[in-house]
């Protein structure tokens, strides 16, 4: 009997080991299968993303100037562009302008997006119909948005300015006034992109279980308290993702600045990518421009990492 038990136990041990071995083999096969599936996509991603980035970094180590052929692949002083950046006041100013633009546009777009999402989440057929209208600015080509605002901000052709004039009000031309030019860009950018954050937050709101709100109400929470302690924490992840998207996009702000102000007056609205564009395409300093771009990429990555570390991704406990 004992022998029989021993044999049974031994057999079951063997079966277990075999099972584990089969399981491990299956896991390994499954992992390999996943890798095989991913490989083409990773290769494509590497070719279209990684190689240009490596090329960008290499170019940033040269003084490449398109009008001087001897500057191609000249690595005699690879840190020169970065040393020049350290003492370039216009570059420093562009970073500061970028920081202001990003802060205000992301903040305003999150706040407005949240408020409008709360509004559109109400059960009303009129508001349901209005959702599409609110999305229009976001689906317009950025250059069209820039032209719309160029017309609105240009006193001799703007209906706003005609109205101001009719009332006898003297309003400065916002895009040529150093105190208002950046605000003018922020207003236009917010108008264009708050529907994006609104859409994401609205989707998040519609995922929120009604029981949370009902329970809070039973406990006597006011609508404000419900929003602050139930809705906002639930949307933490959505807000973070929307904010990150907008932050990264704000660093890419170009059409509005190119059409509305060309970075002016002076350099009041000259953000870093516009400065990089001027260096590359007005002066042909591709090496220097690449160094600016490398710094921008690094800054964006670091900033995104810090925000994710600080705020977290939200999630089920959110």
């Amino acid at each position, binding site marked *: 009997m004992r022998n029989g038990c021993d044999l049974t136990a031994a057999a079951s041990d063997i079966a277990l080991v075999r099972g584990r071995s089969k399981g491990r083999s299956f896991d390994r096969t499954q992992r390999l299968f996943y890798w095989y599936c991913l490989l083409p996509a990773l290769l494509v991603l590497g070719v279209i993303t990684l190689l240009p980035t490596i090329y960008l970094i290499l170019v940033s180590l040269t003084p490449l100037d398109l009008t001087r052929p001897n500057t191609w692949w000249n690595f005699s002083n690879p840190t020169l562009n970065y040393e020049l950046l350290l003492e370039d*006041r216009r570059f420093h100013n562009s970073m500061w302008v970028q920081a202001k633009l990003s802060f205000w546009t992301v903040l305003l777009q999150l706040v407005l997006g949240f408020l409008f999402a709360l509004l559109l989440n109400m059960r009303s057929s009129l508001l349901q119909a209005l959702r599409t209208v609110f999305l229009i600015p976001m689906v317009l080509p950025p250059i069209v948005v820039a032209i719309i605002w160029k017309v609105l901000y240009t*006193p*001799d052709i703007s209906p706003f*300015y005609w109205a101001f004039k009719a009332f006898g009000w003297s309003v400065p031309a916002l895009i*040529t006034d150093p105190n208002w030019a950046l605000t003018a860009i922020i207003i236009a950018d917010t108008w264009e992109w708050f529907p994006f954050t609104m859409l994401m937050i609205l989707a998040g709101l519609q995922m929120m279980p009604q029981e949370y709100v009902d329970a809070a109400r039973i406990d006597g929470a006011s609508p404000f308290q419900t929003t602050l302690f139930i809705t906002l924490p639930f949307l933490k992840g959505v807000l973070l993702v929307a904010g990150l998207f907008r932050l990264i996009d704000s660093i890419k702000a170009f059409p509005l600045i190119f059409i509305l102000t060309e970075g002016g*007056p002076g*350099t009041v609205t000259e953000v870093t990518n516009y400065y990089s564009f001027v260096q590359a*395409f007005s002066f042909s300093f591709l090496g*220097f421009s690449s160094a600016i771009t490398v710094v921008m990429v690094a800054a964006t990555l670091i900033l995104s990492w810090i925000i994710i570390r600080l705020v977290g991704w939200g999630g089920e406990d959110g």
Partner: protein
Amino acid sequence: MFSDKKARRRSVLKGAAATAALGATGLYAPAVLSQTRKFEGTTINGAAFSHTFSAHVRDLIPEFEELTGITVNFQDQAFPVYNQQADLELSTGGSALDFVNITFIFSGRWIGAGWMHPLDDFINDPEMTPADWNPGDFAGGAQASLQDADGNTYGFAWEAGAMIMSASRSDILDEAGVEMPTTFDELVNVCDAIHNKDGVAAFVADKLHHWNWIPYLMGFGGKVFKDPPGDLTPTLDTPEAAQAAEFYANLLSSYGPEGVLSFTDEQALNAQLNGRANIRTQAIAWHTPLANSPDSKVKDSVRFALMPGGPAGNFPGSNSHGWGIPVGSKNKEAAWEFIKWVMSPDVQRRIAIDQGYSAVTRRSIIESDAYKTQMTFGGQDVASLYLQVLELGGKSGYMKYRTVPVFPQIGDKINKAIERVATGQQNGADAMAQAQDETISDFRKAGVEMDL
């Protein structure tokens, strides 16, 4: 037999005569005919910045297409946009464009970097360019920026720009009891007297300050470079430059229409055409529409004059823009057909005389009675103003600063500095000192040797 011989001789003579006639015509006519349709089916792409001349060219393109069978895709864009796109396209040696405008401030850069194709082979080949096309007819001053140091030609000028002054509403000057200003001091006094009278701003300018401001800089005794084109040390941080910056910025901020700092050429022209802004100093092609455009509401009140001079003299800007062929073009000969046709004496005469284009570059047209008649507005001889400016520019060579390869870099710094002064962000001295520092930094990147 005799009659046979006679008949044969007649036949031979007839045949010989016919052969001789065919041969004689064959030397010319078939060549012309073959040239005319030689590129049938070819499509060429061209680009330039928006200008009254571009508009005339666009109107004439169907005629060229009908004549040659060549299809012409022509796009014109705002001045800075065109320059940026053309600069990028040329720098890559791409073949997207077959003919381009060689912008004055980029001529040194584009020709110097070898991005433009020399046209001498085309000009000197009688099969490609008939003698009566006469390249020597183009004003030498206008052609100077389109040639390299060895005398090779890279383009033909379609504009000989000469900066003059106009007052679209001279009736307001008359009512205020002031004359057209001849000095900088008078200009300020006149602006003071007429500003916002009848809702009209006294002064208007487009945002290309590195063109509009330089005559004021030189009028105060300043310079852009120490001694161009040999010594490109920038000289923007001088007291004269600071004074000129404050003077010009004051014209814009005190007497310009709201938002003038963002005005393009077209906006400034429209402000004058509609009588919303009065005085402007700019190249002649931007003034004559005030007198001859169907859209002008100021035809009866426009007045022209030489631009005012400063304590150091009078330095009205002069420039030239010309057609050229990018080195990467795959249709160079067809592109030359187009340039040759559009710059031919006949087409140039039609654009100048029939369309009223003023900044023409062929001497035979400038000196013609028809042009002088065309350029006389309300008894004002604008043609003579034009020639005076061209002579001033050619005499001392003060425009050499503008065709050096690194002008785009310093031009950008000047634009920004004038904006900073006009908006009160900095005073003239600080703004120009900053412009000087930034220019030196950029010139170092470009490998320019400076005497600092």
